[in-house]
């Protein structure tokens, strides 16, 4: 075989590979497409004709979406709102306070700092079930059971990974920069906020993405801590559709699921690069 033939053969095998992967990709999005199909279907047809296109008598139009808004005796917009509030507040608190603490820990490096740091690393291997009962009671006693106060619980339980990641990055920043700032008359506070913080931006994005994904999708912590008659997040809302009123309206459930994953997919497509980088950076945690 001469060189040209080898190249042609290689090109051909690459095309075949590309087509095979393309087919797998189509299969990969089928579950989401099934959700879309069924969100426009009358409930009774969801179970019998799951994979058929909605047509004629099985087509429900927007009924499922309208019904879904008030479905399960709790308005959907409220759980969406609470999900947003909790995610935004928790992520903000975690980013601000853990980055400050990680900088302090790395620079001061006293015995107390090292103790806090190792406790944080240790907390990363502790599964939530270990503390769920006592944590929910503690949160109850301290009135951390509302969407506006539960971020404190997230800050506490999520501090480990964030401090670990920030501390790793701070160690790589040359001390000379901060020394220069100190010589120019910056106090620690100003050094941190106008010199260190801007440099932390890439890690901020990675940690932020990880925390957003965790808090937004979290089910067990909020369901145990919040008073769920009053406050529900989206995962709680969807879980409580089942079992509350006998048979579930699958069509309306799929409409709700579609409404809850559309923002996630848009968010993903907008900052895909950062998300993939952040997730890869957080691979140290299980």
């Amino acid at each position, binding site marked *: 075989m001469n060189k040209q033939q080898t190249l042609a053969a290689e090109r051909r095998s690459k*095309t075949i590979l590309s087509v095979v992967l393309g087919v*797998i990709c189509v299969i*990969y999005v089928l579950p989401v497409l099934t959700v879309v199909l069924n969100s426009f279907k009358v409930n009774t047809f969801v179970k019998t004709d799951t994979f058929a296109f909605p047509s004629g008598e099985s087509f429900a139009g927007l009924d499922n979406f309208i019904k879904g808004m008030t479905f399960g005796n709790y308005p959907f917009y409220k759980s969406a709102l609470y999900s947003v509030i909790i995610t935004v507040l928790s992520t903000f608190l975690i980013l601000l306070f853990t980055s400050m603490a990680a900088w302090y820990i790395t620079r001061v490096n006293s015995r107390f700092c090292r103790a806090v740091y190792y406790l944080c690393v240790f907390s990363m291997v502790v*599964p939530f*079930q*270990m*503390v769920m009962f006592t944590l929910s009671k503690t949160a109850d006693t301290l009135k951390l059971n509302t969407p506006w106060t539960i971020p404190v619980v997230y800050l506490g339980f999520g501090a*480990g990974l964030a401090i670990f990641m920030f501390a790793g990055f701070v160690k790589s920043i040359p001390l000379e920069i901060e020394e220069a700032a100190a010589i120019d008359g910056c106090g620690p506070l100003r050094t941190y906020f106008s010199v260190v913080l801007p440099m932390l931006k890439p890690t901020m994005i990675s940690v932020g993405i990880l925390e957003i994904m965790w808090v937004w999708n979290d089910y067990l912590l909020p369901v145990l801590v919040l008073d769920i008659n009053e406050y529900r997040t*989206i995962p709680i809302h969807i879980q409580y559709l089942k079992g509350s009123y006998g048979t579930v309206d699958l069509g309306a459930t799929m409409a709700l699921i579609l409404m809850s994953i559309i923002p996630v997919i848009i968010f*993903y497509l907008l900052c895909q690069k950062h998300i993939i980088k952040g997730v890869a950076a957080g691979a140290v945690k299980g």
Partner: protein
Amino acid sequence: MSKKLRRDNSMIRQTRMWSPLFMGPVVAAFIIGFVWPFVQGIYLSFCKFKTISKAEFIGFGNYVKAFQDASFTHAFWYTALFAVTSLVFINVLAFAVAYALTQGIKGSNLYRTVFFMPNLIGGIVLGYIWSMIFDGVLSRYGTSILLESKYGFWGLIILMCWQQIGYMMIIYIAGLQAVPEDMLEAAKIDGATKWQTLFKVTIPNVMPSITICMFLSLTNGFKLFDQNLALTAGQPYIIQPDGSTINTTEMLALNIYNTFYGSNAAARGTAQAKAVIFFILVAAIGLIQLNYTRKREVQQ
């Protein structure tokens, strides 16, 4: 040098005065959200209690009860089997996809985007999506995912593959891109076939990524909760001769949850003991991983 040291010290001294601001919030939240519940949890695992205020110390009784509980040992073996099975499937498939995507084919970026996408959907939502799909298929044969435990098992495997392959793929792609180009070139010149290059050059070079991914999928499998709850919630149930029930597709985390918040509040001590056992198990896997990756870093 000594001048620099002194300057550092004065910088640190100044910084220390601000410790309440820098450390205060995190330490306070960390005590509330982790340290105190953790310590209290250890203590309560040796107590008999329905509410925390009325806890009575009883020693190792809860642990004995936990190990005697047939539903707990069932959940343990079920979880272990699930974790290992999902580890094999997820890693083999994720590696294959990552390998294919690093061959410089057309559309790699688009494919990568698609494969990673399910990772962002939460466990509860995933569970409901797949329970609809599985029941859509199984109802044609007059059955349901809730009726047979083997459907529940393989259903959960498929669900986890769908969710996790994209994640592991990202780690594998990073590893594969770091394989030195000249090594691959040298293998080619020496006349190695594609398979020989894969097994003798590529795989040994991505071993660190393989280790990370294997540990990740193992711990993910052990800690699985949301997907398990939403897909089958432990069904089908089997009633034992002694009247107790075993939820055949219930994993460890769900078993602990059900013991805590089930109808029998007196079992909370046992539940806390189970949680401690679960913690030791998961932490042991985590520590082995930490040890292993650290050793590798030293070698490199």
